[in-house]
């Protein structure tokens, strides 16, 4: 698996690994049922401590993206099932950055709510479509 590690980026290595696997899932490079490399195998390939890969896999499991049945390996899950707290946390953090951005741009809370309602209405009109205004990092 091709994963780029930048030990100087300030982002912990386990998060870099987890995020890039998550991106591979989103991009369809990895599909449901695919087996991920074993912990030792991936650690040696990337030249990182195996504990780092364990942590990355645990993170992905917590996010409901993979499963690690004991002794059988690591597999990509059919459909991401997020725990309720994680689900709330993600929306919350997306909303917080949205609120901060709106504040910087001088929106009043009323204007922001109005804009949000408009987006939600549009989505209801076209279910399944990604609204164009959505920021690329929303939902992470």
């Amino acid at each position: 698996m091709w994963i780029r590690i930048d030990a100087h980026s300030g982002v912990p290595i386990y998060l870099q690994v987890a995020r890039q696997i998550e991106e591979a899932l989103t991009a369809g490079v990895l599909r449901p049922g695919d087996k991920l490399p074993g912990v030792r195998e991936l650690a040696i390939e990337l030249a990182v401590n195996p504990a780092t890969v364990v942590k990355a896999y645990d993170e992905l499991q917590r996010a409901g993206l993979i499963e690690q049945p004991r002794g059988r390996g690591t597999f990509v899950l059919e459909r991401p099932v997020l725990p309720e707290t994680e689900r709330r946390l993600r929306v919350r953090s997306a909303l917080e950055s949205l609120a901060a951005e709106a504040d910087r741009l001088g929106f009043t809370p009323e204007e922001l709510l109005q804009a949000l309602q408009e987006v939600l209405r549009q989505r209801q009109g076209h279910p399944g479509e990604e609204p164009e205004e959505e920021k690329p990092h929303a939902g992470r």
Partner: protein
Amino acid sequence: MLAVSVRSLSKTFGPLTVLQSIDLDVPTGSIYGLLGLNGAGKTTLLRILMGFLRPTGGSGEVLSLPLGRLEGIDRARVAYVPEQPVLYSSMRVGELLRFVRSVHPRWDQAAAERYMETFRLPLDRKVAALSVGMRSQLALSVALSTRPQLLVLDEPASGLDPLHRRRYLQVLLEECAVPERTVLLTSQDLELVERMCDHVALIHEGRVQFAGPVEEVLGREKRLRVTAGESARETLAALSGVRSLRPEAHGFLLSGAADPSSVQSVAGVTGVQVFALSIADLFWSYVED
């Protein structure tokens, strides 16, 4: 279980104090990185652990034996690779391996041959004619072939080109990321330590400044960007856990274990941004501040 443990260890050379008071515990099975600037005393510490130097004060154990008592078959359970490995340079690689095999009680010939293949080291080449990278790889191969319980590496992989370095680190991980083997290494290479080590310590000004599992060490300290007026300075500096406070354009950069909410509640503070630290950040915050 600890592979290495030292308490209040000190070492002076005449008027020069290199190690003031070192406390260090290296758990069995860890890959332990010792950081420090040139002259911090890392190599001196390793040489004391190996029994080449006698400490001026303090005590310690290596593989449960008191310092200086590592002899014979016990000594054979420890492999030490100095920064400039002493290899018999007039021998050919194959001769060198046969020689160590004849004198070392724990030698694993099959492993030695495997490493020669992995590193593509030519058995018929004189050691003196090997490149720097190949010589490092040979030294690591010899050390690993003695199946050490404790592997002590002084500045491993330093001066290697990216390809030799990568293979070196991969073999090191493959052979050492196992519960029964402990690696204690020193390095100036923050990236290497960040990648390879599960435990880390910084020796600075004769003492261990921080030590422990990487996650724990990084979890203890944060960097906070505090937006505040000059008036908040004294209160901030006096907060518990604050190790350094550097002025910035509209506030301060605070390093340490301070609680963000208590920082937030200081009069005059209008904003707090919390940054997680990497090993490199932590290293710099100790040696620069």
